[in-house]
């Protein structure tokens, strides 16, 4: 039966979408007014562009390739702690970048655990700064994401295929070629494309581990042009380059990016008869062991080092923590006001194109939006005074695409299943949201709120452009401590930041699920 979906008014949704597009377009226009194209791109700018693309490509390739053996091992082994490990694979998503960087420095840094061990063995030590540091951090963040996506894909292979393979007594190699390789050929390009796009707009990693003429991303170059040279024209031109690059990559990738499922359902390994041999067992143990170590060592380093440093954290850290929590809460509120009406519009619209509106936020880099709004605000007010509201707003925009991906599918189901009943009872507009959509979507709304809160809590982006000594968030305060070599205090701040990010995520996610109807 054809359903005329007038349970949800599309006006507010279109309004919210227009507001998002307007905010971003206003920033782009502001940037355009300041860009003096006569100056063009200097050699340093070209090298930033080259480095951005190069590191993103290597990070995407490494993350995707290394994820294959780990996902394969997780897909066909059961062992105690497997569920926990799969859950932990989701953690880097809400882990503040700066915290992870400190963890990586503790393990791989100049005086880190790895180099200590190497020098004890009289081997040459490694440097984490520059290209390999940036790539290392990107792999740390995206290997778990890639692993989850592939594990998901592995689990979509029907169990009957493996049963058939066992009947035919196929060798592990033959199983790989006939069943797993065709699946990988579909999933790997999309995964790599997604990671490539994510790494293109990387800022905090490049800020802490990159820098210098040979390891500067475009995003970092915008920051430097803005902050150190106050060269608005160069910042503006770089912003446009970033927009064109990340925007076109995001649009291209949109067609091949796999859908990211955040939920569970990955706890059940398939019974596999081809994986019983000793060699297969060793391969899997190595893949899981090394993968888990790579993920867990930096996390463990943060906790141990943080516990030692927590008493050394200055009062400014606690103050910044309070500010950050406030910014995160405002971000969550802004996100809800934007995402819910937009989700309502998208869920009732004919499928397709409107979903791209949410991706607009991905293509536009946070620093570009920040630069644009700085230029817009400057003639009327002191942009620094508005640092925190702008940060909260930009954080909400960054979380918007993820929130829409979480909210739209269940809302679409709700409209399909309960749309007629709602119409028959005149439940339209606010009563529909109040009595049908919000209660039905509570788990997803809680999840989206938690995700936004954690992302905002850990974000080190726009705030770095605007902030002064008085207005700072916890990630920025932590970065300043690291910059002045107060590493113990920074480690204490990292632990607080970690606890707050995970805590905010956990509280909202839990509140959403509590007493929720299936």
């Amino acid at each position, binding site marked *: *039966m054809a*359903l005329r979906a007038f349970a949800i008014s599309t006006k507010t949704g279109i309004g919210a979408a227009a507001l998002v597009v307007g905010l971003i377009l206003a920033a782009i226009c502001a940037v355009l007014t300041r860009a003096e194209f006569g100056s063009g791109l200097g050699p340093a700018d070209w090298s930033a562009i080259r480095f951005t693309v190069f590191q993103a490509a290597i990070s995407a390739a490494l993350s995707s390739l290394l994820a294959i053996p780990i996902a394969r091992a997780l897909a066909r082994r059961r062992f105690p702690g497997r569920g926990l490990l799969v859950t932990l694979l989701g953690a880097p998503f809400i882990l503040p970048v700066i915290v992870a960087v400190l963890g990586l420095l503790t393990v791989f840094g100049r005086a880190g655990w790895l180099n200590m061990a190497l020098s004890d063995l009289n081997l040459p030590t490694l440097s984490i700064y520059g290209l390999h540091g940036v790539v290392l951090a990107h792999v740390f963040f995206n290997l778990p994401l890639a692993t989850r996506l592939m594990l998901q894909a592995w689990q979509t292979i029907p169990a009957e295929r493996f049963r058939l393979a066992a009947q035919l007594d196929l060798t592990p190699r033959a199983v790989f070629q006939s069943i797993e390789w065709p699946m990988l050929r579909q999933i790997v390009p999309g995964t790599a494309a997604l990671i490539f796009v994510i790494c293109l707009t990387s800022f905090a990693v490049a800020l802490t581990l990159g820098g210098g003429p040979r390891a500067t991303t475009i995003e970092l170059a915008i920051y430097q042009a803005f902050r150190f040279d106050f060269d608005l024209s160069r910042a503006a031109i770089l912003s446009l380059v970033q927009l064109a690059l990340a925007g076109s990559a995001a649009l291209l990738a949109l067609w091949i990016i796999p859908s990211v499922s955040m939920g569970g359902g990955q706890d059940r390994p398939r019974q596999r008869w081809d994986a019983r041999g000793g060699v297969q067992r060793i391969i899997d143990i190595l893949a899981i062991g090394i993968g888990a170590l790579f993920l867990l060592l930096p996390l463990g380093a943060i906790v141990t080092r943080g516990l030692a440093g927590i008493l050394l954290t200055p009062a400014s850290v606690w103050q910044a923590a309070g500010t950050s929590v406030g910014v995160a809460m405002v971000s969550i509120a802004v996100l809800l006001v934007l995402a819910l009406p937009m989700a309502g519009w998208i869920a009732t619209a004919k499928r397709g194109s409107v979903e791209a509106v949410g991706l607009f936020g991905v293509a536009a880099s946070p620093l570009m939006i920040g630069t644009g709004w700085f230029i817009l605000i400057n003639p009327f007010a002191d942009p620094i005074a508005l640092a925190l509201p702008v940060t909260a707003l930009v954080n909400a925009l960054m979380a918007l695409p993820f929130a829409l991906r979480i909210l739209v599918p269940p809302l679409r189901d709700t409209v399909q299943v309960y749309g007629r009943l709602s119409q028959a009872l005149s*439940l339209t507009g606010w009563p529909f949201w109040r009595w*049908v959509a919000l209660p039905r979507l509570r788990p997803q709304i809680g999840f989206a709120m938690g995700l936004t809160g954690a992302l905002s809590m850990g974000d080190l982006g726009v705030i770095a452009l605007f902030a002064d000594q008085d207005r700072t968030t916890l990630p920025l305060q932590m970065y300043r401590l690291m910059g002045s070599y107060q590493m113990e205090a920074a480690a204490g701040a990292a632990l607080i930041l970690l606890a707050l990010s995970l805590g905010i995520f956990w509280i909202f996610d839990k509140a959403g699920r509590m007493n929720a109807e299936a």
Partner: protein
Amino acid sequence: MLKLEQAVITQDDFSLRADLSIEPHKKYAVIGPSGAGKSTLLGALCGFVPLAHGRLIWDGRDITDAAPGARPMTMLFQDNNLFPHLSVMQNVGLGLRSDMRLTADDMAKVESALSRVSLADMADRKPGSLSGGQQSRAALARVLVQARPFVLLDEPFAALGPALRNEMLDLVQQLVTETGAALIMVTHDPKDVARIADEVIFVANGIAHAPEPAKELMDNPPPELREYLG
């Protein structure tokens, strides 16, 4: 009186023509082969399926384009008649006020409807913790409080066992007799027709025929209906 005038309902390459009147206080059975358009006919009456041509007139008023909630009818679907996240009381209350601002008077109506269907002690339960029969009765309680002049049933009891199903049909019959509403129900079963209906609307080959008295029609069916009844 509810009149479908020269109505044509089209969906993709399916089309159904109807030109018929439904009188208050009578009970109608809609029968016909599956896929003939029985549910589509009810959907069109309720406003879920637009009319491609023709008009829907109620007591002289044109309600062809009225929203489903603004029509003089209430419908029970095959499934999803209750919101699973709301209590029985809230589900019934939504029939009175879509913003749920129930006055003391409204609350009294809800409670009396719930006692009428023997669910007074289940008011705070969620539908998921009720049996199939209790869920049907909760939906009927809402039909009661809505007190619309036409009650449409699109086989809401199809998933119940035969005895329970008959019990529900009897309850529906009592309720519409008490409230004076007209009943329009889709069914596959000639026994339902004999049990309940005053008139029969036969739907086949793209036409919803005008109602005819149930007894005469079933005793002496035209060829098409004879073929369907077997």
